């Protein structure tokens, strides 16, 4: 008897069940178009060239109602920066953000403010995302007041209670006057989610929402987010380093490395038939109990339909202050070609919404004459 048979539930609403991997065709709510973000380093630039951290390069995303998009990458991949630019916390160095098809003019404060209302951020660390000196009630009342959702104290309290119930913190009256240090990690994260919901956004950006929680409560919180996505038709950007939870939660998965987008498409497609060497590396490195019995020190088990073998690749993500030229993965890639260090490959469509940026699959890999 297999352990994973315990607790199975199959819910008809869960999308992409055993077959159709199509993504929603609805118009996107939030779009990032060719976002580019650099952070200038202070202290440089007075004598000599000013340095900056090239955090995000030419990233485009579309978030649709009721659909989850997972942004997968390791540290330094730029995924958190993308989230913060999308939430309006940072202005992009170049590129634009569209809300319901209209470009948001970041120079006009009213437009930015209206945009920020539609996008809310949930942070990774439940211990630092709540202010330790304020109660749960305070945390939830602020968005209601700032955005005018409640007109008097009674309405406010009612809305706070209903928010707590939406995130399964019941009985609500028990939690209203608690301070963050009196709550467990999972409860704090739920309060953070409730706070985001209080603004009544169209899209929620969740930055590794469960990676700092205990394993046994991660699923609870993930399932809560799933319910919010499916029942309330919220759009989600789900940032994670764990491909398995990306598959569980999101219909679409995008893989980033060192600020560049490497591959993307329907989650099932990307995970079962990964194209980009980096995606394959991630998959081979992910903990997979089905591999049990294989000594870690020995040759890695191949994925079922690996066309390209992925040997163990040493190395870590590069510095973003002096990033490698061209495709930033080329230094670690077992299939690197000369053109990979010259320029970043164009997008290749593999069908069914699955795309990648890799010279192995397309984009005439001749070195262009200008680069010689």
């Amino acid at each position, binding site marked *: 008897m*297999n352990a994973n048979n315990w607790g199975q539930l199959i819910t008809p609403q869960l999308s992409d069940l055993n077959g159709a991997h199509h993504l929603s065709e609805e118009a996107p709510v939030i779009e990032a178009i060719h976002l580019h973000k650099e952070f200038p380093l202070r202290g440089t630039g007075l004598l000599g060239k000013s340095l900056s951290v090239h955090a995000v390069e030419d990233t485009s995303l579309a978030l649709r109602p009721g659909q989850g998009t997972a942004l997968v990458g390791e540290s330094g991949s730029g995924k958190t920066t993308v989230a913060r630019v999308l939430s309006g916390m940072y202005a992009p160095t170049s590129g634009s953000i569209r809300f319901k098809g209209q470009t948001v003019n970041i120079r006009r404060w009213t437009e930015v403010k209206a945009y920020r209302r539609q996008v809310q951020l949930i942070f990774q660390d439940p211990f630092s995302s709540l202010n330790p000196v304020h109660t749960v009630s305070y945390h939830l009342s602020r968005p209601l007041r700032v955005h005018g959702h409640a007109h008097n104290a009674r309405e406010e309290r009612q809305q706070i209670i209903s928010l707590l119930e939406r995130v399964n913190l019941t009985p609500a009256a028990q939690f209203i006057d608690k301070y963050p240090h009196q709550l467990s990690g999972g409860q704090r994260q739920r309060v953070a989610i409730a706070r985001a919901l209080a603004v009544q956004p169209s899209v929620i950006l969740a930055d590794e929402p469960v990676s700092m929680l205990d394993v046994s409560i991660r699923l609870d919180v993930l399932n809560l987010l799933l319910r919010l996505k499916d029942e309330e038709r919220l759009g989600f950007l789900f940032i994670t380093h764990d491909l398995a939870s990306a598959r569980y939660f999101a219909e679409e998965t995008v893989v980033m490395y060192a600020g560049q987008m490497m591959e993307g498409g329907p989650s099932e497609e990307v995970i079962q038939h990964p194209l980009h060497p980096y995606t394959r590396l991630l998959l081979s490195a992910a903990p997979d109990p089905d591999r049990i019995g294989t000594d870690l020190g020995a040759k890695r088990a191949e994925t079922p339909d690996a066309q390209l073998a992925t040997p163990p690749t040493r190395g870590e993500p590069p510095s973003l202050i002096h990033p490698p030229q061209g495709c930033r993965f080329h230094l670690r890639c077992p299939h690197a070609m000369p053109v990979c260090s010259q320029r970043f490959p164009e997008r290749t469509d593999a069908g069914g919404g699955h795309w990648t940026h890799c010279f192995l699959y397309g984009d005439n890999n001749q070195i262009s004459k200008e680069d010689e």
Partner: protein
Amino acid sequence: MTSQTLLEIKSLSVDYEAASGTVHAVNDVSLTLERGHVLGLAGESGSGKSTLAYAITRLLNPPAIITNGEVLYYRRKNADDTAPIDILELSRSDLRAFRWSELAIVFQSAMNALNPVMNLEVQITDVIKAHNPNMGAGARKERALELLRLVGIAPDRLRSFPHELSGGMRQRAIIAIALALSPEIIIMDEPTTALDVVVQRDILSEILDLRNQFGFSIIFITHDLSLLLELADKIAIMYAGRIVEMATREEIYRQPRHPYTRGLLNSFPTLRGPRRRMTGIPGSPPDLRSVPPGCAFHPRCPYAFDACPKIVPALLHIPTGKATPDALVACHLYDPSLNPDGAESVLDSRPDDHREASQPPQVELSASSDAGGEQ
């Protein structure tokens, strides 16, 4: 106890004294570690796994007190050669000699364990100098370079400072320091939790390589059970300060017995197989200041029955047949005197029973029709 036993922990208990009362962080824990084996300790917050590790190495500070137990260390390979020594009873000078040369520890966050104002060479040679005062400076440096080579750090980083190294390299440096005196036991407390998944995989395979090369034993502490399933020979699962299950990794994977283990295994979304809604374990790990009576897990357990809130379950031996050692489970389902029907009947009849309010209306399927799920 066989000639292969290296470390034997007997009934170890650690309490924290606080003004509000006594907290039993580790409660009557018994374990054995064989030579050259990897013992995995899995648990979440409040399970006591880190406290256990620090107790073994006597790194606990007041208000933590070891209230009971022995930690027996068998140095010689022949069991009848010498009696074991109790680490908890060692004198301070013996303890100093014992530490690091026999037992080393790799801490969770390398950045906190490395001295930020000393370079790698100094930190490694310091350790060597402390235990081998007669070794010359040249020999020490040679040893340091050898250690760096073993863990995969380029020799030109010998004089680097911790902040100049990446996270993965820092962790490797810590492992190099742990290996400096060729210890018999290395305790690793969440050594790769803060690292990216690719680096983590690299470091874990290096650790196993080193183990194969040098034959030391490892106690690997982590909250990530899926990692242990690939890494450890034997896994002990802790909950609220007690061991609730201990078995080989095959047994844990193929036939998890304790409901908590089964819940944990069901808490990891899978990369392959059909996508379906999973349920994990409702509730959260208990606050050690107010542990539920009887079996600490019973409020979250879908199979709890009337004996569970009353009696603390003892570890029962379950024969697994073949040549593998018995599995140990602390669960009343396996106690024939309390549950005459046997565990399997209970576990099979109710494959899930979660009172998860957030779930939409469920379509329950019996276990058999989904037997093909993960294969």
